[in-house]
Structures are given as structure tokens and as C-alpha cells.
């Protein structure tokens, strides 16, 4: 039963997640539009979910230990989440700098800001990205 539950969990975990997408104005009248893209990512890890998997996969005293661990982890990591927690919240702070490297003129249009992730259960790649057109 437990292994069936785990198998179903693994199969339904999916591999991609979109949290937010937003697009700005598009100006096609100023010149040639060249697509540019910037992606910044950080490894996400949900320790609480990992402890829950351990609890489901084990029995007796070990399962009880995993349950206690899960509860403690939930208590010390309280707060709203988008995807799995990361250990560095500064990973997306150089977005503007990288966009200007991709498009030195700074003439960007059709900016699409994306918050997404590649997921594998309690581990994920949390991604912040921007696709845009550079006006040449």
C-alpha cells in the first residue's frame, strides 16, 4: 500500500511548474526585434516533504521519528511559499544587469517576466526568467 502510494506520488509529481507570468508593452515600430532571454535559478528543497516521504516509506519507531522531524521542520520554516524553499533569496537580484548585458542598448520591448520551476518531488530548480525583444 505504501509503495503504491509512493509510486502514484512519483508519477503525478510532474516536472514543470508555472507560478507567474506577466508581459509588458510591445513596440514593433522602432526597428528590428532580436529575442533575448535571461534565466536565473536556485536549487529548491522541501525538507518537510522529504521527511513526510521518509515517514510514509518506513514503519514503527522510524516512522515516528520521521513524523517528529517533519513537524519540527514545519515549525522552523513557517511562512508563505512559492514552490520549494531555497537557501539564497538573492539569486534573482542581478536580472536587470544580465538583461543589459544581453541588450547593451537598453532598448527592450515585449518583456515577459516568468516565475517557474523544474520539479522532482521535494527537489526543484526554482527559476526566475525574462524573455524580451532587444530593439537593434
Amino acid at each position, binding site marked *: 500500500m505504501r509503495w503504491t502510494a509512493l509510486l502514484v506520488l512519483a508519477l503525478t509529481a510532474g516536472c514543470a511548474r508555472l507560478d507567474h507570468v506577466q508581459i509588458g508593452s510591445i513596440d514593433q515600430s522602432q526597428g528590428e526585434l532580436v529575442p533575448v532571454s535571461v534565466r536565473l535559478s536556485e536549487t529548491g528543497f522541501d525538507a518537510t516533504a522529504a521527511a513526510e516521504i521518509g515517514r510514509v516509506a518506513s514503519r514503527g519507531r522510524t516512522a515516528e521519528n520521521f513524523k517528529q522531524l517533519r513537524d519540527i521542520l514545519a515549525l522552523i520554516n513557517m511562512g508563505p511559499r512559492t514552490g520549494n524553499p531555497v537557501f539564497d533569496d538573492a539569486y534573482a537580484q542581478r536580472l536587470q544587469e544580465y538583461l543589459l548585458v544581453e541588450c547593451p542598448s537598453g532598448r527592450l520591448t515585449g518583456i515577459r517576466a516568468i516565475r517557474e520551476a523544474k520539479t522532482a518531488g521535494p527537489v526543484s530548480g526554482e527559476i526566475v526568467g*525574462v524573455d524580451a525583444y532587444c530593439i537593434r
Partner: protein
Amino acid sequence: MKIRILLPLMLLTGCTHSVHMQHVSDFDDVPAAEKRSVVTAETEQTVVLGFVFETDYVDQAKQQLMTQCNGRLSAVTTQYSTSHGFLHWTNKIRMQGLCSEG
């Protein structure tokens, strides 16, 4: 034995974060590199067990950004994130823009 396992875990996971959103404004007439400077503003909101003590931290960040630039602000990026903690958490707003004055 349990404590030996739990303590490092608590230290390791007590400092997790979650980036909810990264907004990017239009890049309208961004000035040349030598004529612009990067300005940054950061504000926080502490939440204890769901009780909120500060509700205008987003406006404060915008005000901080405007105070640092008397000219034109463009290419503004806004990051909304949360730092998790023991029975409390901190919501954070970080705004960064390009300032061209004169």
C-alpha cells in the same frame, strides 16, 4: 543521537526563503551606461504567527527608490520574497532601478 541529527537540520533549514515574484517594468529610453546609476530600495514586513505589524512596506520601498533619484527612473525590477523562520516569517520587497539625473 536524535539531537545530533536534528540540530544541524534545524540550523540548515531555519534559513530558507521563497521568491514569489519578480516584476520587470518597461525599459523605456534607458540612458547610456556613463549617464546612469543603479538605485536599490529594500523594505520588510515581519509576521508573527500570522499577526502583521507593518502594512505599508511596499509603499515605503517605492518612496525610498524615488528619494534616491531626482531624475528619471527606468528598468525597475521588483522582487517579492519571504524568509521563513521559527513561528514567524519576514516578507521582503526589493526594488532596483536605473536612475538618470540632469
